[in-house]
Structure formats: C-alpha cells, structure tokens
C-alpha cells in the first residue's frame, strides 16, 4: 500500500531536505497524495505547516519519514483533514498564521488568532492590519435532552497553563469536550525567522519549557542536518544524558500528579522529593535545573561540571531505590485502581489515526519511539515498552517503566562518556533539515530551512502535543466530569508547545 504512496511522492521534485527528503508536488499530485493517505491506514501524519509560498506535510509511511509540499499560489490547498482528522488544528493554525485556506477542510474556524493581534496572517507575505473587536468564539453544537454547558478557563484553578475547555454534560457524563487554545501564542515562528541558528535555538528551547532539552536537541539536529554537520560524540552523549534526566523529572512529576488527583497525596509528595533531587543534580551537573540552552546547534555549551556525575549518580540511586516501593504502593491500593483503571480509555485505532506518540501512544499499542525508530545517535535501538489498555492506569504504569529505562540509560551514558570536543563551529551556508527527538511527551519534530547566510528562512517546531490534544477530547467522552483532571493529567499535553 505505502509503496504506491511513496512512488507517487517520488514523482515530486526533491528539495534537498536532510536526512528525510522533502518533495515538492504539483496540485494534482498533492490531491492524489491526500486520496492515497485516505486509502492507507498505515500512513501517519506527523505534522502540517506552511511558509508564505507552500504547505508542508511530514508523513511516516512504513519506515520512511518524508515531507510533501505543495505550492499555494492562490492561497488555497487541498485539505488533509477529511482523510486525517488530526490535520484539523494544523489547517486552522495555517490559516491564522499564513492565511492559506484548506479547501474541503473539516473546520474553518480560527484557532490561534483570537482577533486580538494588530494584524492578520502575521507570517504571510502581506500581513493585513487588524482593528476589529475580537469575535465571540463559536463552539460545536450538541443536541439532546438535559444537556448543559460548563465553561472552564482560560485561567484554571491550579498552577497550570491557560486554555479554555467547553464541556457539554448530561448529568455527570461528559457528552463532548472542546478545547479552545491559543491563549499563550507568543509568535514563536515569527521571532525565529531571519535569526542565526544559534539565536533561534534559544527560542526552540522555550517552545515548551518542560521539554527544553528535547526541543533544543531536535532543532539542533535539524540545523546540523541542514548544514551536513555531525556533532562530536561527547556532545551527543551529554545531550542524551540531559534528555534522559528531563524524561525522568517530568515522568516523576506526572506520575505523582496523577496519584495526587486520585487523592493519594503521599505518593505525590514522594515523587516531588525525588524529582527535586533530579533537578538539583541537573543544576550541579549542567548549571541549570531544567538544563535550558545547554544544547546548541553544533554540540553542547558546557561539559559536565566536576561534581556532576557524582550528583547525578546519587540522584539516580535515590530514585531507583524508591521506585519499586512507590510502584508497589501504587499497585496495591484499590482506591487508586478504582479511579484509574478503565478511566479515559483511548482506543488503539484512534492513537494510530492521530499518530499520537509518547506514553499516550505506547499505552494504546502504538510502539513509536524516535529513539528506536528511526533512531538517532547515541541511542541503541530496541523495542519500546508498550501496553494495550489505553486507560489512565496504563499511561501511569508506562511512565514508571520509562523512568526505569531513563535511569538505566543515564547511568550507561555517564559510565561511558566518550572524550573529545563539545561543539563544532557552524559553517555559514544554506540548507534544509528535519530533526526528531523523543521527548517525555513523544516525538519533537523540527524542520528548518537556512538561507545562504545561515539565517532561518523558514521553520516549524512541532511539539508532540499537536497529536495528543485531540485525543483528550476523545478520552473524556462518556466519562464523568470529575475524572477530567485525572484524564487530562495522564495525557498532559503542552499548551505553549502548540500555541506557538
């Protein structure tokens, strides 16, 4: 099946994107591609974005990752949402930022543009000034007896990011949830354009602060691919060490928070203490608790500080010693099982359709993990852990498994740190690259095109949350409203990451 699709795409013009090729299709070929995707369940839409002249779709077919592009001379292109509903939010975002309209798209409502920017189509060739009053948002209608709406947000009750949730409920049960995001749109892409790669990297590292290492790395990978640069082995090992520490502290955070939302404060308190130990070790080793800006295109800024490996080792020991006990408490309490098992189930078919990665995908049987497939150095590919149940419990348990994996990897990396350079100078030339790194939420995908002076000509940072948010709406359906915080936390999609 995918063979036919790949053949079709290869009729397009190669654009020289490395290491995954980008093909420029004409309108007919693009339409044929859309149709072919509709015929082939195995093709995953990883992302959809644009620049002033083209739209780009990153796809995964069998083992091949590639990007297909199509020119948009009249500002129109054939929508992919009819064949991949995950394209809906991308298409709405593209219209808001670049002004290109997805013909036949399932949803033409604005997404990031709340009518509050001084201009419309801020990234298009000709942004237009905007001075009208912001329109009232429109939500999808729900019909039925006794249905009422509950609006929540954008300011939530806890220390979390802002977004609006519109619940339609019937009694206790949620009939439909619709998220309205875009509140933290900062204009990330606009700020990255025209900047040297090193400057843009600081923005990439702030797409979603909790994934700063993963995004920093994916962006650096894209730049290095564009320039044909192989970072030194020591830099790669240090990046991986930071990435595993990031995975560990975030999983601890989420794991504890899920238990807390199920009313088990003690597990949360313990996980919080362990997480703090990891963050302090990161600060000792890399000079920053979240390890921001340590990954740069070409390598890493600093070596492990002298006390670093001992500090990390001690933190890993502490976490490793306690995880089995926490896991045993988790597994032996009916009160937890009652709240978590069978709650917020996401069907494997949905996870595949939306190409959801990370813990969410793997807890519903989609075994995609960029570290293993396609893989990138210094990781040694293996089979990622998977579960099938797709409920809150499965996502929580899988986090525990992945914490153990992160500890093992981090240990191995420290023990066998290769000697040598930390960074290579960036040659001043143009190029195009795509980087993919497995963050704690899933695959972080960055695409970048540099002009001859080495400045960012076009860019798109795709947080894994694009592929997760739609599933939250599916996961809550039919569950009781009181379980929303639990289900939400078990997915933990980033707001900043998708608001751009």
């Amino acid at each position: 099946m995918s063979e036919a699709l790949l053949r079709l795409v290869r009729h397009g013009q190669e654009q020289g994107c490395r290491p995954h090729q980008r093909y420029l299709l004409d309108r007919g070929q693009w339409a044929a591609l859309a149709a072919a995707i509709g015929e082939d369940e195995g093709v995953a839409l990883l992302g959809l974005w644009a620049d002033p002249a083209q739209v780009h779709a990153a796809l995964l077919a069998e083992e091949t990752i590639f990007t297909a592009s199509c020119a948009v001379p009249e500002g129109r292109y054939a929508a992919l949402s009819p064949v991949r509903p995950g394209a809906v939010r991308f298409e709405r975002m593209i219209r808001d930022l670049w002004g290109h309209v997805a013909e036949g798209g399932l949803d033409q409502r604005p997404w990031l543009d709340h009518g509050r920017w001084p201009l419309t189509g801020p990234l298009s060739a000709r942004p237009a000034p905007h001075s009208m009053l912001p329109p009232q948002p429109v939500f999808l209608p729900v019909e039925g007896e006794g249905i009422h709406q509950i609006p929540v947000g954008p300011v939530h009750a806890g220390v979390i990011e802002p977004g609006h949730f519109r619940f339609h409920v019937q009694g206790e049960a949620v009939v439909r949830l619709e998220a309205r995001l875009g509140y933290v749109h900062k204009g990330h892409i606009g700020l990255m354009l025209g900047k040297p790669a090193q400057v843009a990297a600081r923005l990439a590292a702030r797409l979603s602060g909790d994934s700063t290492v993963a995004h920093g790395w994916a962006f650096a990978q894209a730049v290095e691919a564009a320039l044909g640069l192989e970072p030194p082995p020591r830099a790669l090992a240090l990046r991986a060490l930071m990435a595993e520490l990031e995975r560990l502290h975030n999983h601890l955070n989420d794991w504890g928070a899920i238990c807390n939302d199920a009313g088990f404060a003690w597990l949360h308190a313990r996980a919080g203490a362990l997480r703090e130990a990891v963050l302090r070790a990161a600060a000792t080793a890399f000079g920053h608790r979240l390890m921001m800006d340590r990954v740069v295109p070409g390598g890493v800024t600093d070596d492990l500080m002298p006390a670093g490996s001992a500090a990390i080792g001690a933190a890993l020991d502490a976490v490793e010693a306690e995880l089995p006990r926490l896991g045993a408490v988790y597994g032996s309490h009916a009160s937890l099982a009652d709240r978590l098992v069978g709650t917020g189930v996401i069907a494997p078919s949905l996870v595949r359709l939306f190409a959801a990665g990370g813990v969410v995908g793997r807890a519903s049987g989609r075994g995609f993990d960029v570290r293993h497939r396609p893989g990138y150095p210094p990781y040694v590919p293996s089979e990622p852990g998977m579960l099938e149940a797709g409920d809150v419990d499965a996502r929580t348990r899988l986090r525990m498994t992945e914490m153990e994996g992160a500890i093992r990897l981090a240990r191995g990396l420290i023990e066998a740190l290769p000697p040598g350079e930390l960074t290579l100078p960036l040659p001043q030339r143009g190029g195009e690259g795509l980087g993919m790194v497995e963050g704690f939420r899933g695959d972080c995908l960055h695409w970048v095109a540099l002009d001859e002076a080495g400045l960012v000509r076009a860019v798109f940072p795709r947080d894994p949350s694009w592929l997760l948010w739609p599933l939250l709406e599916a996961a809550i359906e039919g569950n009781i409203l009181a379980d929303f915080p639990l289900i939400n936390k078990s997915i933990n999609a980033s707001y900043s990451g998708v608001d751009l």
Partner: protein
Amino acid sequence: MREGWRRLLWPRLARALVSPPLTDAPPVPPEELVQALVARLEAAAQARLGRSLAIRQVDAGSCNGCELEMSAMQNVVYDLERFGLRFVASPRHADVLLVTGPLTRNMREALLRTAECTPEPRWVVAAGDCAVDGGIFKGSYAVEGGIEAALPVDLLIPGCPPTPAQLLEGMLALLEAQGGR
C-alpha cells in the same frame, strides 16, 4: 490488597514521623528588598493583616518553565505552606497575583479580569524574565512585552525561570514587608 497496604504504607508513614524532615532551611530575603516593599506599602497606605499570603498564579503566556518551578515550591523540600504561603484556586481568595509570561495579547483580557476579581489590597508579582519585560519574546506581534503593560507590578522576580528558592525569597519578602517585622 489490604495486606499490601499494611506492609508498604504504614511502616513508611510511621518512619516519616520519627525521621528528620526533607524540608530545606528557609531562604532569607535581602533586607533592601524588604525595605523597598515596606516603602511601597506605606506609600500605598495599604493595611494588611497577619503573616500569611494566598497566591493566585496566572500564566500570561509562559513557556511553562516558570510554572514548573512554581509547582516545585510546593514540594516537600521547599514546602511553602510552612511560611503561611499557599496557592489558591480563586483570585477572590488571593492576596498575591503571581504572573508569568510575556503577556500575550490573547491573555490580556483574562489577566485583567482575574485582577478585577482579586480584592484590594493586593500584590502583583511578575515572575520570570518574560513577565518582567517580555524576555526573549519581546517585540513579537503577539505579546505586550511584560506584565507591567497591563497592571502595576509590585515586585519583579527575574530568571529564566527563577528557581524555587528565588521565588520563595520574593514571596517571603512580601510577607516580611506586610508583617511589620
């Protein structure tokens, strides 16, 4: 099931009663900062009561890095509740608005509405480089460039993100300023 419960949780809880706490010693806010805040209080002739503060956090466009460190303030190591500091769910219960992010245009109205719901006297704290002046996002069409663009700010806590210790120090400075030392 019950066996497991006895076996695992009770002994650990009991041990926690006799072992020393994990909590760090409190940070000491710099004297100049406290005095500056006291002066600010007097200038505003704001009367405040007691040594406790209810904090309402508002994310006005952060990358969520600042939120991570604010949440960390609540862990057992920093344990901000021992100082009488706590995060509250409603701005109507809050003495402090702790605001992060460069103030996106899309969050401006929500922030102003939250501030309207927060009873006077109140403190407004801008936490993180973004909240201070827009930080790395300064100059974007989508941001106002710092919290001050919409609200008078009493205290700035720079950092990207500020560490929990720095955040805590700022909160304690507010406490001391209103506690009349």
